[in-house]
């Protein structure tokens, strides 16, 4: 009895936390109850992308996508769809544009506009099965590189492709490899940076959880070119599932002979180990990462010398991001020329983005470089939810800047984003609507950077703190004239004098929001006003006497008892004691409590 259906259950971390295990278990049970085990195979895959719709199921060969599946829905899916061929309509995706139900997952805009290279296997294969990886051309590139190409030829393909580092800086990958290859050293290393610490970024996690072998293969090819025989993948400890899947993949790869000695009988030896972080964002910086692997405090050091020349234990080390390595095998298989045809003049290939915040379709999206921000946010992201508008997007996390909607027609590539004062970064895209206060957001990112600073250099350790103190005052209604200029001066100084990338880019969110939203800063300082109604100290709650029905509900819910009034007497909030918790606003059934900002 041959299989006739493959049921893919997304088991990325997002869907897992939404209950995909219960759904999978229910599927197994229901299929057994109906005697369909031989015909239907259930596969747990890595992240399929549309996290907002999770738990997600994809049925092949029908290519039907079911969203927000609960274990109670499984009975219907098996009975109606698997047994009778009728897709369960209520679980299908409904297009926000046309209001039509879309069955086939490739017709859903979210998937239609993507071009999956890095994410090709994610959500398609069982990440714990090396055989499935092999079925989809796995390890063919490594075999080809080792047995049919010499190191120079492989390096040439990478050069032709135009691949640039995907960790954020965009340094040409072939150059990094070349420097490490040419460096003097009796021992060399390849390291993969999987310490994805940017808030709002989960691309690397999804690749490792959904397709770990692609990273292993990429690293092996890099090691071959460089002349390394040992590699490390540094994964942050907050990703336990990714660590588990990676360890299994390495074990399987060793068993099949893709790691170890004399791979493909070419004389090339390569071994790989996982190294775990312990909760320090700065360890995403390459020199700090190296120190962490060496068992020390994760503090960066000035460069030069660059890791290519002097890295792990003082030896030449090639350090690349997960996504960079994940592109390598495709370039070797299809050629650098093929890759260079995708994207823009300066930025080739695709980029994986993680969409979050005030956006309908949160999740992962891989698009060719050159796609505009508008297409990413609206066509793929589905725009803002519930009739809000997106006023800006934050690109590049705590090192990046915001881009306002006037610039949404900008094509995404390294240079065009830097010109706007933002940064490609690792790929995190946080959408912000009119309900977001840009000053508060800048303070947020600054707080993060200040906390994560390793403390070694004064500009970062002291400077960021000083910037934070000023921002904090502003959000509390204590802003003074000249504060904006102070922030800019401090920020620009820190950028020039900090020791490592963390300090050098930490002022970006502040400088960028001042550049595009100076008005919001001005309002906070001069008018004590927070337009988005976020900064609590700038809010005032008062009761409109005409609407008040004197029901005492607000007074009962006031945690500090500052509402005066009784049944039949119009209530009043005593402003001096008010802690602006908003309880009265939430509970009033007559909309008599008004929330306002600015001079009262």
């Amino acid at each position: 009895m041959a299989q006739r259906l493959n049921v893919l259950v997304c088991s990325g971390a997002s869907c897992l936390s939404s209950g995909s295990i219960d759904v999978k278990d229910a599927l197994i049970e229901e299929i057994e109850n109906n005697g369909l085990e031989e015909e239907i195979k259930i596969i747990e895959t890595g992240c399929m992308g549309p996290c907002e719709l999770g738990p997600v199921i994809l049925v092949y060969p029908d290519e039907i996508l079911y969203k927000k599946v609960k274990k109670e829905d499984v009975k219907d899916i098996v009975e109606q769809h698997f047994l009778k061929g009728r897709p369960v309509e209520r679980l299908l995706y409904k297009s926000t544009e046309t209001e039509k139900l879309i069955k086939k997952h490739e017709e859903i805009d979210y998937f239609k506009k993507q071009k999956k290279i890095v994410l090709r296997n994610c959500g398609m294969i069982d990440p714990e099965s090396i055989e499935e990886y092999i079925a989809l051309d796995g390890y063919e590139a490594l075999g080809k590189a080792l047995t049919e190409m010499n190191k120079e030829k492989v390096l040439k393909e990478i050069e032709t492709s135009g691949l640039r580092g995907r960790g954020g800086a965009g340094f040409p990958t072939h150059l990094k490899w070349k420097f490490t290859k040419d460096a003097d050293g009796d021992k060399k290393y390849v390291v993969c940076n999987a310490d994805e610490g940017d808030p709002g970024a989960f691309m690397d996690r999804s690749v490792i959880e959904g397709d770990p072998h692609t990273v292993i293969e990429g690293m092996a090819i890099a090691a071959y070119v460089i002349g390394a025989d040992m590699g490390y993948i540094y994964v942050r400890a907050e990703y336990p599932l990714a660590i588990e899947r990676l360890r299994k993949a390495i074990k399987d790869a060793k068993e099949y002979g893709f790691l170890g000695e004399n791979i493909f009988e070419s004389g090339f030896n390569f071994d790989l180990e996982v190294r775990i972080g312990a909760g320090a964002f700065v360890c995403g910086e390459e020199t700090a990462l190296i120190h962490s692997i060496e068992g020390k405090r994760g503090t960066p050091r000035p460069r030069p010398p660059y890791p290519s020349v002097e890295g792990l234990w003082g030896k030449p080390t090639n350090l690349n991001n997960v996504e960079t390595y994940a592109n390598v095998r495709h370039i070797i298989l299809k050629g650098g020329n093929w890759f260079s045809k995708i994207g823009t003049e300066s930025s080739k290939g695709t980029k994986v983005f993680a969409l979050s915040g005030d956006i309908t379709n949160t999740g992962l999206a891989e698009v060719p470089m050159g796609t505009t921000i508008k297409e990413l946010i609206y066509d793929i992201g589905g725009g803002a939810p519930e009739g809000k508008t997106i006023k800006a997007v934050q690109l590049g996390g705590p090192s990046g800047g915001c881009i306002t909607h006037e610039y949404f027609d900008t094509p995404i590539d390294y240079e065009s984003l830097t010109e706007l004062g933002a940064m490609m970064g690792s790929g995190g895209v946080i959408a912000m609507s009119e309900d977001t206060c840009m000053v508060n957001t800048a303070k947020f990112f600054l707080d993060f950077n200040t906390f994560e600073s390793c403390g070694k250099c004064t500009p970062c350790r002291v400077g960021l703190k000083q910037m934070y103190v000023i921002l904090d005052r502003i959000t509390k209604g204590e802003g003074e004239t000249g504060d904006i200029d102070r922030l800019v001066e401090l920020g620009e100084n820190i950028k020039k004098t900090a020791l490592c990338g963390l300090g050098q880019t930490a002022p970006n969110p502040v400088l960028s929001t001042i550049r595009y939203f100076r008005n919001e800063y001005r309002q906070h300082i001069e008018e004590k006003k927070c337009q988005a109604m976020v900064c609590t100290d700038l809010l005032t709650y008062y009761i409109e006497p005409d609407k008040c029905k004197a029901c005492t509900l607000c007074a009962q819910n006031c945690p500090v008892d500052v509402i005066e009034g009784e049944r039949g007497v119009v209530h009043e909030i005593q402003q001096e004691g008010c802690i602006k918790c908003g309880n009265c606003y939430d509970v009033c059934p007559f909309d008599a409590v008004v929330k306002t900002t600015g001079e009262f």
Partner: protein
Amino acid sequence: MKKEEILRNYEKRKDNLLYILHDFQDMNPYNYVTDDDMQLIADYLGLPYSKVYGTASFYSMISEKPRGKHIIRLCDSPPCHLMGSVDILDVLKDELGIKVGETTPDMTFTLEKTACLGVCGVAPVMMVDEEIYGNLTPKKVKKIIADYKEGKK
């Protein structure tokens, strides 16, 4: 597993420090590394105690103070913040009766804030030990806490 056994699993190399610290912490029912532990590790690896302490204190996931049986880490990064993690924090503080960084008197729960957990698609999110919980609402949070209290998880 006793402490000596853990040490014997690792070669006497300085770069094993972080892993040994992780293992000692996981073995301790109060999820932390004691002063004695650190001295033991220092002796084993041939490092000064200050180096071990310096490294342990650098990393936010290693604790030198006793913590509860279950560590609750609430993500407070922008995507979660935008989706209401502040409200979830209030609920947690209410339910547990403690502030961030503190442990409940019965040593069951410790409340911590964490950096982005990478599941922004289902914000707001919290991690309890190694399990991740997303799409949090006050109701869900209360249920999760109750389940852990009853030992259901």
